[in-house]
């Protein structure tokens, strides 16, 4: 057994089991404190992960890779989990029963994501995907006396089960035709054999893509996103927006750019089309939204479109852009949700109108939410601008060879302009609208620390991009693209 490769996953799983048993034998009274402690512990795990070195070889019979890409995403997931646990500590008083179990499920979900970042084999990928998805089934419907939460849970359950079914069906086809579930071996088999021969191969590939498309909420598998984002408890929404999405993208890249790379002429145009459609759907759908979580649900579809631009480019620049984008998107989105949790804790409402005059009631929350919205819109000098800039650069680079990519860049540019409207709308509510309620919203010190970290990262990565760009370029090298 190669313990070195799976130590982070083991740490999280042990943490989850210990917390669960502790609560069973000595029921926890102060759930908020446990949440803060867990958040700090996951934060320490994140720091510890920077001492780890990538392994050159795949371990566990070639199923598991600890390369720079895996480490990049593992750190991203740990970061997201630490922040989501912090949010949950603020949120936990609104949960009627099973407060400690809420943390445990989040930790198990994170464990699954860390495994996903390393998956080099369809079977391992499917098992880890199920661990993540099943945890989300429970988490989305956690506020079980509230109809929207139940609705979100039911929708996620039905569509999630469907997507899992599609994925496993596709895997069965690929496995049956090529005789291997390992991504690298799959690539070798496909390179040798003539591609156009087996229609079953395309069928399998489309089904696997559909399953992963559900995870990243790309058109045409996006219908669940707005409803689930709105209904689920806010920390869970944040985990879906940051963790689950990034997990979907790392898998998508590993499947497409390692296993199915020889079929690039087939899937390239498909991804191109999905990117364009997601950009249009997400950004237009967000325009009339009145609920901030629903707005972020549509915006998340739009961002899936932006990131798919980088995937569609199929070059090293594109992969690096995807990684950078995820890095900065994590800070931005977590900042937004952290602020939303702190506000809704007092107001109890999610509609954008209830954020009116926020800068008077809690200046730091107003500033944080405003900066997050501007970063999502891609306004310089915030990190979202540089993230989008890199994605567009990668697409333009590809367009030198294939003129269709100019169209994609054009759609992306139009989407950015459209998105300014609804992101600025939130900013307008915060700074320019007044509310009849002027009582201050208290902000606890852990939330303050979290917000300052996120805001610092958003501005820092927007101004001084080099460290994250270098890390992204280095991680992008694992695919060996040009």
């Amino acid at each position, binding site marked *: 057994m190669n313990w070195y490769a799976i130590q982070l996953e083991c740490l999280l799983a042990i943490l989850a089991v210990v917390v669960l048993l502790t609560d*069973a034998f000595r029921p926890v009274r102060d759930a908020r404190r446990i949440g803060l402690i867990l958040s700090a512990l996951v934060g320490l795990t994140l720091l510890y992960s920077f001492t780890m070195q990538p392994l050159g070889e795949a371990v566990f019979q070639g199923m598991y890779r600890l390369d720079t890409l895996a480490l990049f995403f593992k750190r991203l997931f740990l970061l997201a989990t630490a922040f989501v646990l912090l949010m949950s500590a603020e949120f936990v008083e609104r949960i009627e029963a099973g407060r400690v179990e809420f943390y445990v499920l989040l930790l198990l979900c994170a464990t699954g994501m860390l495994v996903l970042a390393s998956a080099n084999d369809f079977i391992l990928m499917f098992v880890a995907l199920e661990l993540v998805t099943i945890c989300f089934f429970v988490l989305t419907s956690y506020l079980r006396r509230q109809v929207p939460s139940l609705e979100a849970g039911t929708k996620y359950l039905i569509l999630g089960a469907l997507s899992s079914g599609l994925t496993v069906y596709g895997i069965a086809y690929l496995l049956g*035709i090529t005789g291997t579930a390992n991504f690298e071996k799959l690539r070798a088999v496909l390179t040798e054999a003539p591609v156009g021969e087996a229609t079953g191969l395309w069928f399998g590939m489309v089904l696997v893509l559909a399953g992963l498309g559900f995870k990243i909420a790309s058109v045409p598998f996006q219908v669940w996103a707005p409803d689930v984002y709105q209904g689920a408890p806010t920390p869970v929404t944040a985990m879906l927006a940051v963790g689950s999405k990034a997990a979907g993208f790392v898998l998508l890249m590993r499947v497409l750019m390692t296993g199915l790379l020889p079929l690039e002429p087939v899937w390239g145009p498909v991804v191109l089309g999905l990117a364009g459609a997601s950009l249009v759907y997400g950004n237009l759908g967000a325009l009339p939204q009145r609920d901030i979580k629903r707005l972020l649900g549509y915006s998340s579809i739009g961002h899936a479109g932006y990131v798919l631009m980088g995937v569609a480019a199929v070059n090293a620049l594109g992969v690096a852009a995807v990684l950078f984008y995820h890095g900065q998107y994590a800070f931005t989105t977590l900042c937004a949700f952290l602020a939303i949790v702190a506000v809704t804790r007092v107001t109890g409402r999610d509609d954008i109108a209830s954020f009116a005059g926020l800068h008077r009631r809690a200046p730091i929350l107003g500033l944080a939410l405003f900066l997050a919205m501007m970063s999502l819109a891609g306004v310089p000098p915030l990190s979202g601008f540089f993230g989008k800039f890199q994605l567009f650069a990668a697409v333009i680079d590809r367009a030198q060879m294939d003129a269709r990519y100019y169209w994609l860049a054009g759609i992306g540019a139009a989407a950015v302009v459209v998105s300014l409207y609804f992101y600025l709308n939130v900013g307008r509510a915060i700074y320019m609208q007044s509310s009849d309620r002027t009582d201050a919203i208290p902000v606890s010190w852990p939330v303050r620390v979290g917000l300052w970290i996120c805001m610092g990262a958003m501005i820092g990565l927007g101004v001084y991009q080099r460290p994250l760009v270098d890390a992204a370029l280095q991680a992008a090298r694992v695919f060996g693209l040009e």
Partner: protein
Amino acid sequence: MTDAYNVQYLFVAVFLGVAIVFPLAPLVIARLLAPRRPTPVKTDVYECGVEAKGDAWVQFRVGYYVYALVYVIFAVEAVFLYPWAVAFTGLSVGAVIAMLIFVLLLVEGLAYAWMKGALDWK
């Protein structure tokens, strides 16, 4: 794709055919051969030989589902333990440790359910 590959699916088709014909055959044979002399007692609805009482739309105690879930712990354990036990003599130390971890995780699930009162019938 080779023919031999596709031929494998023939088994599925044959199996499907058999699966449809097999349960239908006795029903058809019974209809053709059996004499029919219905009386009120014969046509009565019954369950396990007991006379049915009341409506079919009764409410069940949801408490049952907790037992079903706890049962799953043992069911899954058995499914994995049997093949492991059969191959036990040929396994490495790592496989024994892996199974030990697996069983301990299931025990943890049981302990959790027990402590949370899932096994108390209230």
